[in-house]
Every structure is written in structure tokens, then in C-alpha cells.
């Protein structure tokens, strides 16, 4: 293992792919790798001063490619960078690119003339780019900040070769949102089981309310519904195996997921494929809709942007379907920062990441951000609102958190599933479910194994 740990041979990659099936399994496997990896670094001397060797503080300008293009999160990111400059002495030049464009261009961007640091996502999506040598391993940074994070956060930052590539900053749960005042006025209660969930939806419909606001014009929001149904019905391990295509898409477990979803369809806002999620959130704000399943990063932020009544917003975790998994899992995607392989000012970039990987930096970021929750252990964020406080509690209760379908699977497969789920929304009949499963499996075969 020690010799394999130095260079990512095919065998370690394969083992990494297999190991990534479950966090608990992967943790055991990959911790051996990472210990050998960090042993080769210089944990004590400190990279920021050690390799440059000239002065005590880092200098120069670090360019930071950012996809934090929405106004709220852009302001939070700007304040984080100001604080990082103050802490490290390195100037930061932020290059903000529209969120979706940034993702579209990422491969060309990282191979061209990328910024030193860039914003990205944890999980398979990080591992995919790290495995192709487009990111710089930052084991030496983790040697310093490792104590600030739990093992799950470290795991999410670890590539298939066992080295760390990402410093996480926050995550946010995917949950069912509702307006407290509406539930109180109509006498609705928070459902905890599937039957109660359906009964509530029925009641709302008879009251003239759309039970579930729903939008999928951008393709990705509905992937979350698949994730949660799959984790509630088949559990986390099954879900992750399916994402890695270790379970075929034609499996009866997947059929069950679509069948449950089909049961919900009559209560979901129609025309979802033509609606952006912001408009769905607006129907919730206007209380035309009763519930919306989406991330706090989107819904709470939209409430803040629209100056809607954030205090009235509340959420509950997705109800239990299969008692053996109860409410043990959820999607809670993690965002963070990486150094590109072609970075020019590596020392300063690492110094900035070391700063960002502290509770103080996260708390600073979260002063402006009223929807995400920080990942550093023992983080005290006095600015947390009710949504954020509840997010911390609910994520803490989970036995495992998934990252979202387009972060847990090969991006090409996520793209294929976007088309398939839109076709399901158009026609959720049993016959169509079988056709779509076959199509998903045929595409998965070419994407993962040929």
C-alpha cells in the first residue's frame, strides 16, 4: 500500500472507486493511504514559509476563481476574502463567473490558465477532477487544519488516491420547507411517515393549496427528490452503490423509488419542466403552495433575496418510508475550495486555505450567509438564524449524508438522469418507468464500464 500510495496506479484508483461505495468502508481503506501520503509531506515545518524560505509572511496576489455569483453569497465570499487577506498578508483577486457557466467550463478552465484557487464541490465531483491531475494535493494544509474537522468532512475532501484536495467551508441540508403561519392557520401537522405525508398533501389539495411547489427547468432540482426517496426506501449504501453503478438502474429498488414518486405526482405543481426553482419558491412564499423540497441554500437564500418573511419559514426532514432506515440520511451537499495544478502562487494559496479551514473564518463567512451551516468543529456562529440552527441539529442526527446526485456520480450520468427524470415528470406511468430504467442502465453501462 505504501508504494501504491505515492503514485495513483490503476489498482489504487480501482480500489478507491470501489471503496468510495460507503464512507465507513472507504474511511478504513483510505486512511492508510492518507497517512502514508501526509508522511511524505512536511507537517511540522509549514509549507507557507518553508518552501519560499524568504520571509515569515506570504505575499503577492492570489487569484481566486469563484462561482459564488448570486448577490447574497457573493457578498459573503467577498468578506471571507477580505478576512483572509488580513490574516495572511496575501492579496486576493476574485474572478467571479456565473455559477452554471463556471461548471460548464470547468475542464477547459482547469487546463487553460486557471486561477490559483477555485470554488468547487466535495465528493465524487472533486475526485473526478483530482484523479485527472487538475488539482493540487493539499495534504500539508490538512496536516494543520485537520483537527478542525470531523472524519466525515475529511473524507469528503479526500481524492481517490487518498490525498486531500479540498478545504470545505459549509454544507446545507435538503429538506421539506413550509410556512409556519400557514400550517398554524390551517391546522396542519408535520408528517413523519409516508401515509401522513400523503394524507397532508390530500388535505392541502382539497383546501385549494398546491401541496408541493415543484420546478425542474434547470434539470437538477428534481434529482434531489430521487435521492431522498432512494435513501428513505433503500438506504444510504444502496444509494451510493447505485450512484457508482454497482447496482443496475433496472433494479426493483429503483422501480420502487419511481413508484413512490408517481404516487406524489398528482400533488405536485404541474408544468415543472418549464419552471425555474426560484418561481417555485415564490409560490411557497405567496402561500399558494404548502411545501417545497429543496436545499436551504436555495430556499432560505431566496426568502432573504425577496425580502420575504424568513422568520415564517420552517422545515421538516423528509418523512420515513422504510422503517429500517427511518430518517437516518439526507442530502447535505458540501462546498469548498481547491488549488489548481497550474497555480502560480502556491504558497500563498495554501496559506489562504489554512485560514479558511478555521472556525473563525467560517464564522466570518456565515455573518452574511443566512442559509448555510459551517463545517468546522466547535464552530460558534452567533449569527445563526432558526433555519441554520435547525440545520446543524438535523445534519448531526444523520448516520450519513449524501452529496446530491450530480456530486455523487459521474457527471455524464447525472446529465443522463436529468433527461430521464424530466421524461418521468412528463409521464409517470408504470410503462414509462420501465422504459426509463432500461434507458438509464444502457447509458450507465457506457459511462461507467466501457
Amino acid at each position, binding site marked *: 500500500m505504501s508504494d501504491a500510495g505515492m503514485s495513483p496506479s*490503476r489498482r489504487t484508483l480501482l480500489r478507491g472507486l470501489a471503496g468510495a461505495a460507503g464512507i465507513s468502508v472507504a474511511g478504513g481503506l483510505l486512511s492508510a493511504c492518507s497517512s502514508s501520503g501526509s508522511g511524505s509531506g512536511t507537517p511540522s515545518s509549514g509549507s507557507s514559509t518553508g518552501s519560499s524560505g524568504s520571509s515569515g509572511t506570504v505575499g503577492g496576489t492570489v487569484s481566486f476563481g469563484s462561482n459564488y455569483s448570486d448577490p447574497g453569497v457573493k457578498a459573503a465570499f467577498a468578506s471571507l476574502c477580505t478576512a483572509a487577506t488580513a490574516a495572511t498578508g496575501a492579496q486576493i483577486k476574485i474572478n467571479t463567473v456565473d455559477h452554471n457557466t463556471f461548471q*460548464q467550463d470547468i*475542464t477547459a478552465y482547469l487546463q487553460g490558465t486557471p486561477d490559483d484557487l477555485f470554488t468547487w464541490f466535495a465528493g465524487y465531483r472533486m475526485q473526478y477532477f483530482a484523479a485527472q491531475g487538475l488539482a493540487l494535493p493539499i495534504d500539508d494544509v490538512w496536516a494543520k487544519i485537520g483537527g478542525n474537522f470531523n472524519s466525515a468532512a475529511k473524507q469528503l475532501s479526500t481524492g481517490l488516491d487518498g490525498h486531500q484536495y479540498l478545504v470545505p467551508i459549509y454544507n446545507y441540508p435538503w429538506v421539506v420547507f413550509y410556512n409556519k403561519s400557514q400550517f398554524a392557520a390551517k391546522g396542519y401537522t408535520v408528517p413523519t411517515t409516508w401515509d401522513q405525508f400523503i394524507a397532508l398533501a390530500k388535505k392541502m389539495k382539497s383546501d385549494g393549496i398546491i401541496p408541493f411547489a415543484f420546478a425542474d427547468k434547470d434539470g437538477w432540482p428534481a434529482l434531489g427528490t430521487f435521492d431522498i426517496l432512494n435513501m428513505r426506501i433503500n438506504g444510504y449504501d444502496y444509494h451510493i452503490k447505485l450512484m457508482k453503478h454497482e447496482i443496475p438502474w433496472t433494479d426493483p429498488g429503483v422501480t420502487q423509488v419511481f413508484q413512490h414518486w408517481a404516487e406524489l405526482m398528482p400533488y405536485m405543481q*404541474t408544468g415543472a419542466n*418549464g*419552471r425555474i426553482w426560484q418561481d417555485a419558491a415564490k*409560490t411557497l412564499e405567496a402561500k399558494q403552495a404548502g411545501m417545497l423540497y429543496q436545499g436551504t441554500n436555495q430556499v432560505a437564500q431566496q426568502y432573504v433575496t425577496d425580502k420575504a418573511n424568513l422568520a415564517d419559514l420552517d422545515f421538516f426532514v423528509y418523512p420515513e418510508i422504510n422503517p429500517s432506515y427511518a430518517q437516518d440520511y439526507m442530502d447535505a451537499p458540501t462546498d469548498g475550495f481547491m488549488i489548481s495544478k497550474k497555480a502560480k502562487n502556491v504558497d500563498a494559496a495554501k496559506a489562504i486555505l489554512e485560514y479558511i479551514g478555521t472556525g473563525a473564518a467560517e464564522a466570518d463567512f456565515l455573518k452574511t450567509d443566512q442559509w448555510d451551516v459551517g463545517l468546522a468543529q466547535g464552530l460558534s456562529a452567533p449569527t445563526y438564524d432558526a433555519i441554520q440552527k435547525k440545520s446543524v441539529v438535523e445534519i448531526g442526527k444523520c448516520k450519513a449524508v449524501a452529496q446530491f446526485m450530480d456530486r455523487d456520480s459521474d457527471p*455524464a450520468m447525472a446529465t443522463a438522469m436529468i433527461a430521464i427524470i424530466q421524461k418521468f415528470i412528463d409521464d409517470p406511468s408504470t410503462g414509462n418507468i420501465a422504459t426509463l430504467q432500461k434507458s438509464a442502465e444502457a447509458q450507465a453501462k457506457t459511462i461507467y464500464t466501457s
Partner: protein
Amino acid sequence: MSSATDTQVPAAAPAKARRRRGLRRLSGRDRVVVALLLGIPLLLDLAFVWFPALATVFLSFTKWNGVGGLHTKTCLPNVPSILNNGCLYGIQNYHQAVTIYPEFWPAVRHNLIWLAVFVLFATPLGMLFAVLIDRGIKGSRMYQSILFLPVMLSLALIGIIWEFMYSQNLGLINTVIGRNGNSNAIDWLGNPHLNLWAVLVEATWRQAGYVMVLYLAGLKAVDPTLREAAVVDGANAWQTFWRVVFPVMRPINVVIMVVTVIESLRAFDLVYITNKGINGLELLSVLVTSNIVGETQRVGFGSALGVVLLVISLVPICIFLFQTFRRESREGPS
């Protein structure tokens, strides 16, 4: 066919001889100028047209995610795709496209529908506008400006403008017809049975103006004495147009046919702005882009789709060239 070539040979031979004599008469300096004037465009043509085209054909037989280099080894079966990069893939990309890629056949169909709507609807509409304006109806300048306005806007902007018309909950059309509620709104851009037609209305809105301008130019160039002669002979407006004016405009008709075919095959902006070309708006150009420009690049697969688009666009181009050259050879060298 043989008689055509027979007549062509004696006519072409002296011309060739004359050209060769002419080249010998050139001074050294003239030859350098000729070499530069021909060579630079030729080099640019090779570098920016032929090389990318042939490279695309080559890439379509490989599997490559755009990272690192290509090599000449064959792709290994049953190995995770992340390890199977830059290898030779045979015709697998084409095979996958026509068998298991769900977007492929809808895209081909939509491209053909797009072409049909442009040929059968947008072009005649533009022609009608041009004829009406050319007859000098009242306020024709104003109509001309209004109809030409969309041509000056980029297609991306047109897509955004029409979003305001089509938007489900807040759009103009649904508001006017009273179907903007949450339960009975018409999902113009999300319903895969409707959105292609909705987008084609946007495209026609622009294309008709474009065709109108081209036809107006053609109509202005028609010799007025022809019309006067037709009127004197007792032809009505309908007969004058179809029997006299339309045949005279043959060159402009050919140009418009070519423009129509090109515009419909390169259609991209509108559907991409509307919903990234998914869910009912698949077009080959979008599939090429989404595979080559996406977060994970499937360069080989995208190239294969590009080659398919190339082959389809070669059909009208070949017909056009065949027609043009046949006419030239019939007319003989002047």
C-alpha cells in the same frame, strides 16, 4: 450527360492553354503577389476549416474526456471510463448515438422539423411581407422597420424577450388568455409537445424579417419595364408576380434557399437560451455542445454527433453546388 462533357472539353481546352500562357507571362514579383494572395487564404482555409473538420472526424473514433493527450491504444472493455481516456474507440460512438443515446433521434427529427418550418412557413411569410411592402401600401416604411427589428437582435436576446411572453405564471400570453394560474397554466416552454413549436414561432418571427429584406432587395432590382409590359399584356397582380417577377429573381431565390437551410441547421441559440436544449428542444448542434463543452467532456462522442451534423448539412450543400455547376457548364465559359 456524355454530350454535356463532350461540348465542354473543346471549350475548356483553349481556356486552359490561355491561362497557362498567361502565367508564364507574369514577372517574378507578380508571381509572389499571386502566391501570397492565393496562399494566405488557402492556409487560413486549411487551418480553420479543413483541419478542424478532419480532426473532428478523427476524434469521433476515439474516447476522450478532454484531459491529457490522445494515444493509439484501443479502449479496454469493462474498465471504468476514468481510466479509459484518449483511446481508439472504433465506431462505438456512432453505435451508442443511434442505439442508446435517447436524445439523438429526437434531435434529428427536430432539426428536420426546423428546416421544414423555415422552408414552408418562414420563407413564404417573408416573401409575402416583401411583396406587400414593395407594392407601397400605406405606412410601408413603418412596417418594414417593425418587421426588420428582430433581425437586428441577437437570437439570445430574442429568446429572453419571448420568455416574457411564454412564462407560465407571469407571461403575457397566459395572462391575456386567462390561463396563468398555478393549476391550469399552459406550460409553453416546459411541455415537450409544445415547446418546439413555441420556439419555432420565435425563430420564424426573426427569419421572416430576414427573408423579407433579402426579397425586398431582389424586388427593387427587378426591371420595372417588365412589370409594365406584363400590365400592358393584361396580366393581373398574381400572374405578374408568379410568371414574370418570381422567375427573374432566380438568383435571390437560390440565396434565400441556402440561407434558410444554413439557418435551420445551425439553430442553437434560441433553444439553448430557453432550456439548454433539453426536454423537447433537442437539436444536433446542442447535443454537440453539451457533450463537448459540459462539465465532463465526452469529446469523442460529441465529435461523432458533429460528424452526423456535417453529413446532414453536406446534402443541401451538394445539391446547391451541383445545381450551380450544372448551370455554369450548360452556359459554358464566358
